[in-house]
């Protein structure tokens, strides 16, 4: 697989939020505005790249049995660093808005998941590219989600009013239900696009990891 593919799969095909559905907790919590989404995304991106690099580097020497604690320590270290950096240099409003969700990157499924599924099996270069791609995919999704919510709530983007006459804020969009509604609509749209694409190619679309044939819980089978 080419380096480009490692990088680009996280952006669309295996987008962590919209396809793999990882990291739902920060996604729902911090996307009330595009800025928050961007901050959270960049923070995760940094952690993801660094931890992927380190875990890939030490993959040969970590015993299989204690790999999870080791990964956690590595990830926690970078999260702590990012936390300090953001506290020092990021706008206070942003840092406060993200709040507990920065330390919580430690247990973000995307970071741990990529470490376990990818970095622990691949070389450093590939792992960094994977981390970069996944992180960018995450950031993009969060910015788009946050941007959509921000725009629908008050017609602004990155705190800049886009629609001049829009005076009444539609607060449903910035509150928790809005997060679920918009995320759900995005997921539906994403599935629809993929289904259409698969249909054009004469295949049936099943999201990665959600192939019905792999699971016998229901007896629907097939599609």
């Amino acid at each position, binding site marked *: 697989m080419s380096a480009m593919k490692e990088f680009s799969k996280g952006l669309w095909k295996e987008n962590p939020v919209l396809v793999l559905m990882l990291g739902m907790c920060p996604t729902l919590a911090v996307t009330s505005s595009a800025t928050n989404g961007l901050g959270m995304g960049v923070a995760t991106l940094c952690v993801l790249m660094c931890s992927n690099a380190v875990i890939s580097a030490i993959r040969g020497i970590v015993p299989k*049995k*204690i790999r999870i*604690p080791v990964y956690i*320590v590595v990830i926690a270290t970078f999260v702590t660093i990012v936390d300090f950096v953001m506290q020092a240099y990021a706008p206070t409003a942003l840092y406060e808005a993200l709040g507990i969700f920065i330390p919580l990157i430690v247990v973000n499924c995307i970071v741990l998941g990529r470490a376990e599924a990818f970095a622990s099996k691949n070389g450093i270069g590939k792992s960094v590219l994977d981390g970069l791609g996944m992180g960018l995919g995450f950031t993009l999704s969060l910015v788009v989600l946050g941007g959509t919510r921000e725009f629908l709530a008050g017609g602004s983007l990155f705190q800049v009013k886009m629609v001049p006459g829009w005076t009444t804020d539609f607060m449903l969009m910035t509150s928790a239900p809005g997060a679920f509604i918009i995320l759900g609509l995005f997921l539906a749209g994403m599935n629809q696009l993929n289904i259409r694409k698969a249909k054009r190619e004469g295949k*049936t679309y099943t999201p990665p990891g959600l192939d019905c*044939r*792999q*699971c*016998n819980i229901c007896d629907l*089978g*097939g599609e």
Partner: protein
Amino acid sequence: MDTALVAIVSTGAIGGVLGVVIGVVAKAFAVETDERIERVGELLPGANCGGCGFAGCADFAKAVVGARALPGQCPVCSPDDVRNISQYLGIEAEQKEKRVAVVRCSGDCANTVRTLYNGIRDCRSAVVVAGGAKGCDHGCLGFGSCANACPFGAIEIRDGLAVVHPELCVGCENCVATCPKNLIVMVQASVDVHVYCNSPEKGAAKRLVCKTACIACRKCVKAGEEGQMVVDGFLVRTNYENPPTTDLVEKSQCPTSALRLASKHAANEYQGAAK
């Protein structure tokens, strides 16, 4: 530099203590697992169709490793898959012939008498009402119960008739039991000549309701070699023990086109063939 020192020492100490705990726990709760099961499971196609008789691929893998089943029992495995699994487990790979489903009916809407039916579009439900509202009591109803049961999309409902695509069929047999008219049989994939009719009625009665019924004229029996086609009441069937070659269809000039090649039937080449 106190902070750095404290960080290093505390992290190191906690790591050491927890490492000991993990070591002890790993020893105390060690579970023997047979990694061969996992490996065999990976080699299996993962269709979970149940065609082998076990509850999914994982269960089958367990049975294969435990020598309770042979890899060849998996209907979906290609011969290569079977060879790989057998090689991995160090057992003899048995020869296995691919089997596919055949729906023994050629009566699509254009060629059969059908009654107007208003009700649930499912064969198993439709037979409750007037036997399915098809002129022929034994023919395919075309509501697609078998197609819904097929996990591989190998059955197409075309103009009120279920048609198997042999290249997609893996022989899991899921469709066989769903047909309320018992039209589906499993045959060797190498045989291409089939009689697409299963009605035991007299030829004249069949012709009244279906243009493509087998009327047991025996043209195919005479055209082929001895024993290749066998007569069964008012019906001729392929002898799957001694199958005829594909040129029989051409030679026999079946007057109703009930005698068909599965490959051409799937490709819809018999459309309007009935005279």
